[in-house]
């Protein structure tokens, strides 16, 4: 009896491992196809514009809310800490580094993973389940070129201004809280920000934008394209897309920072 259980467990592990490796392989080919179809951007420029509105303009409120909140929170917490050491004048420096390098892009990535990624997963999953993706193929249209490439191009373009907006809003909310909560003169705050910012602070932040754009778009779209099992399947693939892309955004955030900071 225990031997049978062990054998079944072994088979299940082997099966799951095979599934996982096959998924990785399929994802790789799917990603290559998405990039290979880039020359068709002129054919699908309307779809690209639509997606730029969805992932860019429509995402502004959520990016603003998250970056303003984190900027304000950082100003309060770091300000309290620096006050204990009598170094409150360094508040601008410490919050600007945190916002520009790490928290601004990271929060934006997580918010867009939830917003843009979930939309992609649900929309493409529903299209898969209702055979609309098969219909595209049946009518001689490459579904990756029509549905995934415009999303990828739009995300690659729009994540830069969203990162800039996130940085701007985060820094200004921190400056506002520094002035009104910690009674720190705005001149002192900004004087500790601008002269001390280095090119690498911007490179780290802005390099994350295209990395997150690729991760969020491809993972969510791939999961949408892989949806099966009716509406419940669409739900499962959407959740999987958000969880995996959020996890990868966190991991990528660490590695981009590490690589850039070690080499600049």
């Amino acid at each position: 009896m225990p031997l049978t259980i062990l054998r079944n467990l072994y088979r299940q592990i082997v099966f799951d491992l095979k599934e996982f490796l096959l998924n990785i392989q399929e994802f790789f080919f799917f990603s290559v196809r998405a990039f290979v179809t880039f020359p068709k951007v002129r054919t699908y420029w309307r779809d690209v514009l639509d997606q730029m509105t969805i992932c860019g303009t429509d995402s502004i409120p959520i990016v603003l809310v998250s970056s303003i909140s984190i900027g304000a929170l950082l100003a309060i917490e770091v300000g309290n800490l620096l006050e204990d050491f009598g170094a409150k004048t360094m508040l601008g420096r410490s919050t600007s580094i945190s916002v520009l390098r790490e928290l601004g892009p990271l929060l934006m990535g997580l918010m867009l993973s939830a917003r843009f990624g979930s939309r992609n997963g649900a929309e493409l999953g529903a299209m898969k389940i209702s055979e609309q993706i098969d219909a595209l193929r049946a009518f001689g249209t490459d579904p990756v070129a029509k549905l995934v490439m415009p999303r990828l191009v739009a995300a690659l373009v729009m994540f830069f201004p969203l990162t800039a907006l996130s940085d701007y809003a985060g820094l200004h909310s921190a400056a506002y809280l520094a002035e009104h909560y910690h009674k720190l003169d705005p001149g002192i705050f900004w004087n500790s920000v601008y002269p001390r910012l280095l090119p690498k602070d911007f490179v780290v932040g802005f390099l994350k934008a295209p990395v997150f754009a690729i991760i969020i778009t491809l993972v969510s779209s791939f999961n949408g394209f892989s949806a099966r099992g009716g509406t419940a399947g669409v739900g499962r693939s959407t959740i999987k897309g958000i969880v995996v892309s959020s996890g990868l955004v966190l991991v990528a955030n660490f590695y981009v920072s590490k690589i850039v900071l070690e080499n600049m």
Partner: protein
Amino acid sequence: MIELKNVCLSYGDKVILKNISLKVQDNTIKAILGPSGVGKSTILKLMLGLIKPDCGSVFIDGRDITHLKESELYEIRRKMGMVFQGNALFDSLTISQNIGFFLRENLKLPEKEVNRMVGEQIRFAGLEGYEDLLPESLSGGMRKRVAIGRAMVFNPRMILFDEPTAGLDPVSSKKILTLISSLRHNSNLGAVIVTHIIDDVFNVADCVAVLYQGEIIFDDVTEKLHDSRHPFIRSILSDKILEL
């Protein structure tokens, strides 16, 4: 002409098609009859190259499409229109945009020409006044007619229908069957109709293949179906609708 030669297909452990061979001549309406879940829709997807067989070959006009790349298949698929079981209309596009999708997407015709051709299909399918609505606003029968219009608009040589009357009320079913019958008279088209409703076969098909337990057990002109001695065919002739 479409030809399947010794095609077999399995999903995991489940064998769907066992070494089947099938021919669909131009300008004829061929029905593929069989119970639900037996692999009839799979045959249509094989004909379009949407899925690959485990063994055997699929020929379109004598060309083996089994191992063609996706980009090479697009040319082949442009000879055929497909009406999916659930219609698969693009739900973010209006009725006229759905019908004109292929013309705008692949043929890059001038907008004036697209509008003329879409207008023809709208009239043919009896959908005047509904051009600017989204598919969700239409009844099941009307959606089916939109799907037929979308499949016909680029003048394909063959149209593949996946359960064209399934889930429709008798009046809508009759309209759809009349529409399918009129295809041949109006456009000299060939068609493959996958169905589990035997009356549909006698109403529109010139010939019929019966698929049972993954094998073709009958493949001849429709009239000869009555002469078959196969127990399954005898049972479906008496029951009319296959609910197995």
